[in-house]
């Protein structure tokens, strides 16, 4: 299961389309802002919701921003080892550095060109869901 944290419905649709085109069959759970993402992750702690295999996180989010969500993920025992990939349009150095400081697994800047984006998404799904060995769920 993938947790996609994205506020723009257009981008959400395009990301889902790209993932599907890349033959990613996993269930995709969408959180539309940081607060919603945290709510979902809190629910996984009690076992009410399943823990995702991968979190695709945008940085610029309403209410609670992406970096804050990342901090919460890393500070909770249950989600501390969860693979998190930042998928954003920012290539500001401070965002990249802050993300890595908070322990992000990967940082990808979304290209404007959708062909490139689709390719990136395909590689992303392939790598994190197939190639990469995730830590055992606790």
């Amino acid at each position, binding site marked *: 299961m993938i947790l996609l944290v994205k506020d*723009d419905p*257009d*981008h959400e649709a*395009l990301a889902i*389309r790209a993932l599907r085109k890349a033959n990613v069959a996993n269930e995709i759970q969408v959180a539309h802002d940081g607060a919603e993402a945290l709510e979902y992750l809190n629910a996984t702690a009690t076992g009410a919701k399943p823990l995702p295999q991968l979190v695709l996180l945008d*940085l*610029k989010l309403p209410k609670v921003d992406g970096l804050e969500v990342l901090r919460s993920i890393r500070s909770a025992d249950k989600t501390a080892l969860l693979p998190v990939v930042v998928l*954003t*349009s*920012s*290539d*500001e150095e401070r965002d990249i550095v802050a993300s890595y400081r908070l322990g992000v697994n990967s940082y990808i800047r*979304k*290209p*404007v*060109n*959708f*062909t490139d*984006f*689709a390719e990136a998404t395909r590689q992303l799904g392939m790598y994190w869901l197939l190639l990469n060995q995730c830590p055992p769920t606790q």
Partner: protein
Amino acid sequence: MGKTSWYRLALIGAIAIVLLNTWFAARALHTLIAAQFWESHTLEVISQTETLIAQVRTAESAARGYVLTGMDGFAKQYATATNQIRQSTANLQRLTGDNTSQQVRISMLNTRIGAKLSALDAGLAVRRAQPQGMLDPELLGPVIQDTPDRMDSVQLTIHDIEAEEQGLLDSRTTDATSARRWVWGSFTLAFVLDFLLLVAAFEQLVRANRARERIEASSEEIAGLNRKLTQVNEELESRVEERTRELEASNQELEAFSYSVSHDLRAPLRTIDGFSLALEEDFGEKLDAQGKDYISRVRNGVQRMGTLIDALLQLSRVTRSDVQRERVDLSQLATLVFQEIQAGDREREVNWIAQPGVMAEADPRLIRIAFENLIGNAMKFTARTPGATLTFGSGPQDGKTVYFLRDNGAGFDMTYVDRLFTAFQRLHGEREFKGSGIGLATVSRIIRRHHGSIWAEGEPGKGATFFFTLTP
């Protein structure tokens, strides 16, 4: 000469004046004492001569008395008187020891007194031989006859001596008077001079005091000015702080703006591009060639806008970031950038010539951006040149090191060289060569941030050379 030296000189002068005054006064006093001594000495001589006259008269009258009466009392009186006369003459001789003319007179006096006394002695001898009765006048002749004359001669001599002494007394009195005047004069002068010195010293003291007060006043004034200066400085500092805060605020605003540009302007572009592609992929069979062409134009436009936004972001980032200089191998960095760009376009063959070991003190991150733009530019404008060659090197010019990047591409018309480094100014149409029009503006800003300068030379069809320095 310094002020201290002047004071020392004045002090020495004052001491000299006081000493000179004292010496003058002492000398005058000494002269006065001497004059008075001589005055009293002369008076003593005069009184001694007068005593002598009286004694001679006493001896004479005693001798006469004895001759007339034969009474022993007279003989005794005569003896006493002669003794006194001898003493007195001895005294006189001693007293006038300093005066030769007086000595001569006194020896004459002695002779005359001696003659007188011998005459008197002869008379006395006659009486002794005949104690009773009348004496033969014949025998007494010398005593009697001689008496007035002899007496007179003695008296004359004495008077001479007295007159001499009187003359001396007069001159010595004059001396004493003048000495007294001298003493008065010198003491008055000393007093006046000392008084003047005292007044001058006092004046000096008052002046020094006034000067000190003035200095104190001016130092207070200086302290006041200092306080004011400190206050002004503080105000200035607070103003600088305020400006810095404003600048920081505006920088933050700019950063927020850039951040939002980077996110928000790109997001809708991606949506447009994404759905255009989805349209093409999912409904491709329903679109004819023209429809597909439109879609590709939409996507090209999006692409260009994306590039433009990125270039703008880079320009603003270059403006914001601090220049952190370190030793950079420009040859290596330029070659690396060239290889990266070359890797993105493997179909093209471009010759790269770099002078090895060109070093500079510069910010490597900013210089990398400059190279990306310069080399990217050169690659772009040599796209249609067969045997495209890019050359990087350096050379001295006016005592400075000038770096250059040369290409043999499309070049440019020197008429428009001024517009080369201005943002959004392009010398080639979009159809000819694609570009944001921001790249060289970014390079220029990077060079300016290094306090260097940048210029270019070119000729249409023959290539362009970009020169830059990294020091003022």
